[in-house]
């Protein structure tokens, strides 16, 4: 009834090619952004920012990156943790070597460094596919983590290999370190994630995205119609690693503030982000948000419900939480193998017909 496109005519190419063609969708997104940018910063506190919103946003960024590679270009990667580590250590080195540099530039440069590393490790994708590629990227994961743990130069030769973020300001607001206000940290991360999501959405709709999807759907056919696999695959690796590198930089600078490479960027991070992409929906920008939301927020929600409301002991709640998460993941994948984004799409189709489905 409310969600209906009848009467909305598109009279220009511009309107026809808009990201949100339906008016209600546009209102919804404007409303969501207004809440996220205006209302949330007014009410956000330390707990909400540091424990819930920041991890959600930084993992969304990582999931966006991996979704480009896995969902749009069909190249499976298990190196996400390693690439995030590249981003984090690049930010650390840049911040300590050039204290005057703006944090946004630091993060973008970290993304570029990671993109270069990603292209390097993406080279095998030209010869190997599928599971074999997964194994090759797994090597990236282990190699990179080992490298940052082993070579003292990366952590400025401190005693423990743990890196700590120095305090930095952006436009006169302190954004890193413990004294930064939660609202500033949140807004900074949110702006970056929204901007990057917009870029991703437009890239995947355009020539480059279509090239990736052609490779994903059938690489030989794509090659025959003139898509160059070298360009397509390596650009996907570069784009994807750029996003993942920025996510790694954000984890280090804004979210955690101090990281230890083996713990913060281990193989379990790679799997976590891959699960986000699969559960959220392969080949969907919205899916990256939903997947990250599900895997970051659900455990915290379950924990708070069980410990704070039901008064369960912390350890019992943890065991139940681990079990429940597993059950929920299986359940979602059985109900909708194409992920949460597909569920949303189905809901929208149903809404268009509601309340007269026939």
């Amino acid at each position, binding site marked *: 009834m409310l969600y209906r496109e009848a009467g909305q005519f598109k009279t220009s190419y511009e309107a026809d090619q808009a990201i949100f063609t339906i008016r209600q969708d546009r209102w919804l997104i404007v409303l969501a952004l207004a809440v996220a940018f205006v209302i949330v910063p007014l009410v956000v506190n*330390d*707990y909400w920012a*540091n*424990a819930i919103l920041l*991890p959600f946003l930084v993992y969304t960024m990582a999931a966006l990156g991996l979704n480009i590679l896995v969902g749009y270009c069909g190249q499976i990667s298990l190196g996400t943790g390693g690439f995030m580590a590249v981003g984090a250590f690049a930010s650390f080195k840049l911040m*300590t070597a050039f204290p005057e540099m703006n944090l946004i530039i630091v993060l973008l440069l970290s993304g570029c460094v990671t993109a270069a590393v990603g292209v390097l490790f993406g080279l095998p994708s030209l010869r190997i596919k599928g599971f074999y590629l997964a194994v090759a990227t797994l090597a990236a994961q282990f190699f990179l983590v080992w490298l940052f*743990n082993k070579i003292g130069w990366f952590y400025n030769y*401190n*005693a*423990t*290999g*743990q890196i*700590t973020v*120095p*305090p930095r300001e952006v436009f006169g607001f302190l954004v890193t*370190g*413990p*004294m930064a206000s939660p609202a500033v940290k949140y807004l900074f991360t949110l702006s970056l994630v929204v901007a990057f999501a917009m870029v991703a959405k437009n890239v995947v709709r355009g020539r480059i995205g279509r090239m990736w999807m052609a490779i994903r759907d059938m690489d030989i056919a794509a090659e025959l119609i003139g898509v160059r696999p070298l360009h397509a695959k390596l650009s996907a690796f570069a784009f994807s690693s750029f996003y993942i590198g920025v996510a790694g930089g954000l984890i280090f600078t804004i979210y*955690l*503030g*101090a*990281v*230890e490479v*083996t*713990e*913060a960027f*281990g193989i379990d991070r790679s799997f976590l982000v891959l699960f986000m992409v699969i559960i959220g929906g392969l080949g969907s920008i919205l899916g990256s948000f939903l997947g990250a939301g599900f895997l970051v927020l659900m455990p*915290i929600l379950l924990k*708070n419900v069980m410990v*704070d*409301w*039901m*008064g369960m*002991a*912390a*350890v019992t*709640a*943890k*065991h139940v939480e*681990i079990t429940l998460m597993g059950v929920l993941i299986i359940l979602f994948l059985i109900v909708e193998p194409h992920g949460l984004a597909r569920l949303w799409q189905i809901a929208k189709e149903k809404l268009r017909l509601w309340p007269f489905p026939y």
Partner: protein
Amino acid sequence: MEFKKLTMALAVASVALPIATTSAGAYELTIPSLVYRTGPYAPNGIPFANGVADYYTLLNERDGGIEGVRVNLVECETAYNTQQGVECYENTKGAGESGALVFQPLSTGITYQLIPKASADKIPVFSMGYGRTSAANGKVFPWVFNFPATYWSQATVFIQYIGDQEGGMDKLKGKKIALVYHNSAYGKEPIRTLESAAEKYGYQLILLPVDHPGQEQKATWLQIRRDRPDWVLLWGWGVMNQVAVKEAASIRYPMDKFIGVWWSGSENDVLPAGEAADGYLSGAFHAPGDDFPLHQDIYKHVYDKGKGAGDRGRVGEVLYNRGVVAAMWTAEAIRTAMKIHGTKQVRGEHVRDGLEALKVDEARLAELGLKGFTYPIEITCENHEGPGKVALQRWDAKAKQWKIVSKFYEPLRSITGPLIEEDSAAYAKESNITPRSCN
């Protein structure tokens, strides 16, 4: 419809009730306990958490709390994971009327995470014998305490012990000492100290990292078999310890030349190796066992009433006792804070002052029922490490008991002092901190 209403009412009640019960009542001392009863390090995390929980239960049951103010212990499960540790910190720091009084992160990774955060929130961090060693410099780290001793002090104690066994420090020249360490911030802590001691005494240091979680050590011990170091030091945690002791036994490495850090010296670590672990050594700053008056009180007031956190049979294990000693020093610091500020409604910043003025001497230990349990400590503004003394304990596989076998060694401050100074200065520079004056 009736059923729906009923369930709604129940749901509302179940949500509202706990809130109602916690908001009412007298002032309570909220102490968060970041525990890990799950995950790869749980076998070591559980006894420690039980020791902490039982000590506060004892205070509440026997004395009605600290100076009559009840302790509200809030456990939060971290699974030894930094991200979950951050969530726990943010979740518990404002808990209760008092707010969190002191944090014991119980993981080096989480400690590094909390050092800047807690300092900004004005909550002290008590990382007892772990975490960042250079936090011993109270001028740079006013909110962090790592008494009674640090990893660096412990490393120098091991070197002294080895010197004593070899017949003098000059005999160390040309000896080979291997360090098998957890390849993380925790495991890397002693390297620098051991390196500068190596320069001074002329022994050769062999570094053998083991990656998390440490189940795979075949290659490491093959290397030890090949290089034949005279002594092996172990800096492990969790399952890594048991594997190391078993592997050492399987290559027949002499156990009396094998020394573990104080986190590698509990019953869990040596029992799986059976008889072969006999004679294995580890660092310690408190005694094992349950033959102290305090433990009898724990049995009487906690376990006999069915309020124990764990298994009665495991009271007095090494890590259980470590939990007890951590809780004891925290409680004494809160007591000191109450005295200094003349109020029973202490806050985080008061407890920091209490920690900094903490003095637990022999007489006080005897009063607490812990005579001979640990050594007296006194904390000052500059020195947050305290005395830094460490003894060695030996595992007796037949009696299934740990026993302290050496004196309490003083650390070699000539080695650790400059290193602490250097590392804390680097931290102060990185984080724009001006060291405070302590006069």
